[in-house]
């Protein structure tokens, strides 16, 4: 177990470094010195509290979408529609806040909106589980397609009932300051949503590993047939797992709208879902590991944005870094299996020699 954990850490760190090196090499095409670029990046990320805190701001929604993927993954189900569930959450958060902000006190609006996004994102996700359970539909396909439907719904609402009063751009009016998520460090953008995300990670860990429900979900993931034999209702679990998964992704919409943007803008955060999957696999599906992996991806995002502000480096460097890191992380899975097999073989040889 000790050796396994060591392998995990070393190979993952190596994967991250290689991913960054590969993206750095791409900078050569632009005639930029990657060493310079990265040193500017690192110094500017830690330059001031605002930028540094932004890492955790960016990590917040990523934790939710990563949890969304990891949770169903434990039941051997693929929810690759976290992006859509996030959009639904964001639309509900914006609509709920705008509707209630002048009627109710701010804190109450926040709580109601949070609950609404949980239910909304959850139901949007549960639909996938429902058709999987009832009609044996392919959840991978349905979740992917539901993202595009959610995108259309968001675009529609931004063009119609949620459109700003000026009616100029496809975005909502700004939310009243009373329904903004409170900042936890003054002078930065770091809001209480980050705490919520960390709590969600811990909560999902407890749910998965310390409760009967979590045990059942994992049992279905290991062997659905055997789980069914032992009296676990797999179909009910599909729906429930997808509800929780969708609710988690929906909460990302809440923290982004009420915590960061304070409005809903068309097409914002288009890669949360994909990055979430990357984080989940980097963390090996472990909810606690997701906290750290999400912070890393947050740092890539902040760093990439800073790089993008430097002369002549496009902001697509962010996707490039994320993509390379993800590919190398997948390769590190292979290296880990290989290392472990070698270890087993050595053990066997030793035993034979004795």
């Amino acid at each position, binding site marked *: 177990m000790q050796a396994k954990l060591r392998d995990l850490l070393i190979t993952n760190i190596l994967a991250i470094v290689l991913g960054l090196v590969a993206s750095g090499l*791409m900078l050569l*095409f*632009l005639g930029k010195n990657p060493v310079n670029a990265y040193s500017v990046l690192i110094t500017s990320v830690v330059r001031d509290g605002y930028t540094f805190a932004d890492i955790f701001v960016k990590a917040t929604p990523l934790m939710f979408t990563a949890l969304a993927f990891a949770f169903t993954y434990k039941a051997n189900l*693929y929810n*690759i529609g976290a992006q859509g569930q996030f959009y639904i959450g964001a639309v509900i958060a914006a609509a709920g806040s705008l509707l209630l902000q002048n009627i109710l006190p701010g804190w109450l609006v926040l709580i109601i909106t949070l609950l609404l996004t949980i239910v909304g994102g959850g139901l949007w996700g549960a639909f996938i589980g429902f*058709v999987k359970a009832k*009609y044996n*539909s*392919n959840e*991978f*396909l*349905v979740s*992917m*397609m*539901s*993202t*595009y*439907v959610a*995108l*259309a*719904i968001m*675009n*529609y609402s931004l*063009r*119609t009932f949620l459109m700003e009063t000026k009616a100029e751009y496809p975005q909502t009016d700004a939310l009243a300051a009373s329904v903004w998520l409170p900042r936890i460090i003054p002078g930065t953008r770091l809001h209480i949503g980050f705490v919520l995300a960390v709590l969600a990670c811990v909560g999902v860990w407890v749910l998965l590993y310390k409760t009967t429900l979590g045990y059942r979900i994992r049992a279905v993931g290991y062997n659905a047939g055997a789980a069914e034999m032992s009296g676990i209702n797999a179909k009910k679990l599909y729906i429930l797992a997808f509800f929780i998964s969708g609710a988690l992704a929906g909460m990302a919409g809440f923290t982004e709208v009420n915590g960061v943007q304070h409005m809903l803008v068309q097409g914002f955060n288009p*890669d949360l879902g*994909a*990055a979430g*999957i*990357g984080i989940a*696999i980097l963390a090996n599906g472990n909810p606690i590991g997701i906290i750290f992996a999400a912070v890393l991806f947050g740092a890539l995002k902040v760093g990439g944005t800073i790089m993008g502000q430097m002369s002549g480096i*496009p902001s*697509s*460097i*962010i*996707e*490039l*870094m*994320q*993509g*390379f890191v*993800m*590919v190398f*992380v*997948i*390769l590190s*899975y*292979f290296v880990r*299996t290989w290392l472990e097999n070698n270890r087993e073989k050595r053990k066997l040889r030793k035993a034979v020699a004795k």
Partner: protein
Amino acid sequence: MIYLLSVTIMMGTPLLFGALAEVIAERTGMMVTAIEGIFLMGAWAGFVGGYLSGSLTVGFLAAMLAGLLVAGLYGWICIYLNQHQVVTGVAINLLVVGLCSFLHRVIFGVPITPLTVNPLATIPIPLLSKIPLLGEILFNQNILTYIIYLLAPFSYFMLYRTSIGLTIRSAGENPEAVDVAGINVLKVRFLAVLLAGVMGGVAGAFYSIGFLGMFTTNIIGGRGWIAFAICFLGNWNPKGAVIGTLAFGFAEAIAIYMQSIGNSALFPNELFIALPYIMTIVLTISRKSFSVPAKLGVPYLKEN
């Protein structure tokens, strides 16, 4: 209506390229979940090749090569390193988005006016295109459209009537048997994925240089996934793929048509844009029986 049907056939072209590619690969047991990335890479490489050389042929060759490279990476990780197909696909798709937009910037900088090429011209077939109605719909298309609708029956024949087809199908149903027959399962799968890459690259390039004449990073917008879905809904059969393609091509044609006439009060544009995706969900639900290749998505590990 003639216009709609003609657009249906045309918009079906890349979907059929992708769906047939996916059918062949999935029959060997490989879901090509990198298809969205392959499409995008093909669209980008096709545009770059076509723009820089001034020749669309070069563009399509570049697209094939780009698709081949992406598929090669995907196949290497999934087949030879036994990694997870869904997860690998998602990672590669994200990487491709980054690569395309980054390299596009490297090559073209920030152009003031959008760069364009002249898209593929239609080639009316003599005599046949003069047939009323049908001629306009079927025989006044571009070269790729003719090619793919001819390739569809050919691939059906190959899958079900030749020994290559038998090998392909067996690799997905009973890889052990293929192995015993002395055929390298991994190689069969890898070659099928590479073929899917080449076809997917052409499909992607169809969007950039086959019909729009330009490139943006959201040019594919889930069409790769639609091709992926058509393969599922068409029951892993070229015949089903053609039917599915026509249905989705029609949905796209309606979307294009509705957008061109502006917003109607009754049905918002977004509904038509989302139509192919909604259709996929509805069809996935309503299909009762599937003949999924038995080893779809399962890596083949030889015991030694």
